[in-house]
């Protein structure tokens, strides 16, 4: 990687910022170089999030309500989830490639530079093509919020701003947390998917759809209920059929902070544990 050449210049704080900007700039230039591929990627990437929403619409084509929620109400849940997931995927989703960095030895190169390992990896591989998904996710959320007949109060306006941000932080933490498993088990890619993409699908529906220990584990054990379901309830002014008080919708930022802290901790421990493949 040619960007490594600027590393010695970053002893002071301002230099580090300049180095990160150089990394990002190199990424943007290299991705825009193949313009047709970039446009194809940009268009193709919307598809994934579009189909998440289409699936919900198709299921509501055969039923009037899902787990006690109407389509309009469910769309608020979907909007929060897809906006949060798509943005987190854009910003840190490529940390999924960690097993490959470890295998190819690129991770060694990253560690010897005087910059943070995590920001370097993210900026070296920022998938600008996923921008289209994040924009679409936001559009779904705005449409859902506009059409759900929400009785807007200053509190709800604030929540409508804070909840998607908390969802981004939460999903980003999940990406980093699951990626750290590959420091211990290189073949863990698919296992990570079950939590990241599984979490995305889980948060696309009201948690009343699920049952038993599976709901308990994903919704409250891993905290996914606070990403979209509880904030949506608070925005809609609906009582939780499962009995949690209305303030649970406001727990989202707190849960996100807890998730981010554990992700940072796990990353630190993982990097310490990391041993080069030596190849």
């Amino acid at each position, binding site marked *: 990687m040619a960007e490594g050449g600027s590393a010695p210049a970053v002893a002071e704080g301002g230099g580090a910022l300049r180095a990160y900007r150089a990394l990002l700039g190199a990424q943007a230039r290299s991705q825009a170089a193949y313009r047709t591929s970039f446009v194809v990627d940009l268009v*193709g990437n919307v*598809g*994934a999030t579009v*189909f998440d929403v289409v*699936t919900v619409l198709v*299921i509501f*084509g055969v*039923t009037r309500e899902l787990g006690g929620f109407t389509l309009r109400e469910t769309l608020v849940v979907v909007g929060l989830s897809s906006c949060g997931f798509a943005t987190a995927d854009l910003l840190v989703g490529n940390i999924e490639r960690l097993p490959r960095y470890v295998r190819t030895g690129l991770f060694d190169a990253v560690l010897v530079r005087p910059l943070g390992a995590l920001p370097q990896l993210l900026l070296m591989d920022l998938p600008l093509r996923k921008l289209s998904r994040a924009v679409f996710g936001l559009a779904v959320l705005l449409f859902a919020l506009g059409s759900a007949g929400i009785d807007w109060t200053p509190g709800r306006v604030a929540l409508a701003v804070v909840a998607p941000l908390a969802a981004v932080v939460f999903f980003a933490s999940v990406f980093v947390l699951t990626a750290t498993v590959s420091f211990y088990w290189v073949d863990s890619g698919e296992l990570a998917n*079950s939590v990241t993409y599984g979490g995305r699908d889980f948060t696309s529906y009201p948690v009343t759809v699920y*049952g038993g220990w599976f709901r308990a584990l994903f919704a409250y054990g891993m905290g996914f209920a606070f990403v979209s379901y509880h904030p949506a309830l608070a925005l809609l002014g609906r009582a939780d059929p499962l009995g949690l008080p209305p303030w649970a919708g406001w727990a989202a930022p707190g849960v996100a902070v807890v998730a981010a802290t554990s992700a940072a901790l796990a990353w630190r421990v993982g990097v310490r544990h990391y041993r080069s493949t030596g190849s």
Partner: protein
Amino acid sequence: MGSVTATVAPPTGAHVTPWFRTFGAIAAAGFRRHATYRQAAVAGLCTNTVFGFLRCYIFLAAAGAAGTVAGYDRAQLATFVWAGQGLLAVIAIWGWTDLADRIRTGEVAADLLRPVHPVTSYLATDLGRAGFAALARLVPPLVIGPFFFAVYVPRHWATVPLFLLSALLAVVVCFGCRYLVNATAYWLQDVRGPMILWTLGSGVLAGLYFPLGFLPGPLEAVLRYATPFPSILQVPLDVLVEREPMSTGLALVGMQAGWVVVLLALCRLVQRRAERRLVVQGG
């Protein structure tokens, strides 16, 4: 990939027996190759299980209080989901870029020197892979599902053999589609576009995200009769849960066989056109 086929002795005569022996040897190599990735198989199985729970709960919620939706009752939905999660790994719907990678790097030229037709040799490898996946990835979800959900057990004795045949045809149909998507690399070099379209389209159109019966009637009919996608997943699963009477099931499997013939012929045609082009480039 290439070293696998390279170990196979060239057929000595025009007889059918050596051809089968070659095909069997390549398939066995494919089986062995995938049997070595055991950790990956376990990780994949966990993912299939999580998604099995997710889809099962969502479809059951769609069935709601009535208990039936689009011709499936609750037990049939559960079987549809769990068998589908297993079948997904057997047909290897996503992630196969072996051919495209070899075209991009030029290694494909070595495939053309071999005495076995590329379509045949890649198909044999894929069937070997599918054989391993049938044991390691199809059976576990079928065992796990019934522990947590009431599943549908086929009533007719002929259903299970017909399902197995249908699943085999599904593997070949899926292989044919993947081969064609990969072969666009002969013309495009960068297959990301076709690959994205395939990844997005195959899941939705094959009946993974929701049974195609959930779609409006005309749309379902077009998908069913004009595209190979339902043959990849929906048809074997419908056969297994006996959604239609046996005669309809037989007709659907017959249609799968038709797609197998069409797609394999198309693969060979595309391969031949591409080889001519390669010669021009190389000359």
